[in-house]
């Protein structure tokens, strides 16, 4: 929670090793949500916690240097846009809203549905990951929240 880096060498080394594996596991949970337990929400939370771990062990300023606010807001909106956009595309091609079988692809209806579900999970994962990262960067900081003028837009 502080602006400085954690002193412990063990914590820094272990998290430097383990953070890529956490992120890989999060991506696995998102993309395999259709055949195993998990899904967009859980995978997004796992990706977000990896960034929280980075921000706690290394400093908050480093996190703000690596992740800009514009990208976070873009990902949040993009996730929701993917979800609702798939519904709107279905509606454009003659189906009901979120009726997945109507996509203009040369596939059978269950395959199109599976593809749409994969896209939807990716959208949810993006939205949840960037929301949790945004909450972390805004809530952890000085006494009255993070100074926004020190964060590059």
């Amino acid at each position, binding site marked *: 929670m502080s602006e400085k880096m954690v002193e412990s060498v063990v914590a820094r080394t272990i998290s430097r090793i383990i953070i890529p594996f956490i992120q890989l596991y999060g991506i696995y949970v998102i993309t395999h949500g*259709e*055949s195993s337990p998990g899904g967009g929400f859980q995978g997004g939370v796992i990706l977000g916690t990896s960034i929280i771990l980075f921000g706690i062990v290394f400093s908050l300023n480093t996190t703000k240097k690596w992740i800009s606010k514009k990208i976070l807001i873009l990902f949040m909106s993009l*996730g929701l846009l993917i*979800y609702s956009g798939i519904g709107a595309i279905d509606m454009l091609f003659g189906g009901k809203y979120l009726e997945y079988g109507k996509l203009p692809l040369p596939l059978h209806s269950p395959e199109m549905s*599976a593809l749409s579900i994969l896209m939807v999970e990716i*959208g949810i994962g993006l939205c949840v990951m*960037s929301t949790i990262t945004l909450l972390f960067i805004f809530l952890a900081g000085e006494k009255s929240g993070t100074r926004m003028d020190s964060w590059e837009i």
Partner: protein
Amino acid sequence: MLRSLAIISLLIMGGVFIYVIEDMPPIGNPENPPHVHVVPRYIEKAEEETGVPNIVTAILANYRGYDTLGETTVIFTAGISVMILFQRWNK
């Protein structure tokens, strides 16, 4: 005062839950009340209709797509409102 009230209510609720657990239906029995109404339809048709082996994901993202869209909107709104609140606060 508040803490003893919390402990007393916790003990009462925990006692009720532990007493009630003997009456829970056996796990996996197809005659259980939640398994007789719409679940057989999902179990039979979910994979051939949605193409997804995991029935939970099929229900969440296909049959109940509006619910999940609303949930994602709630998360999005929470993030946006925290951002607006803290930016006002820091001016």
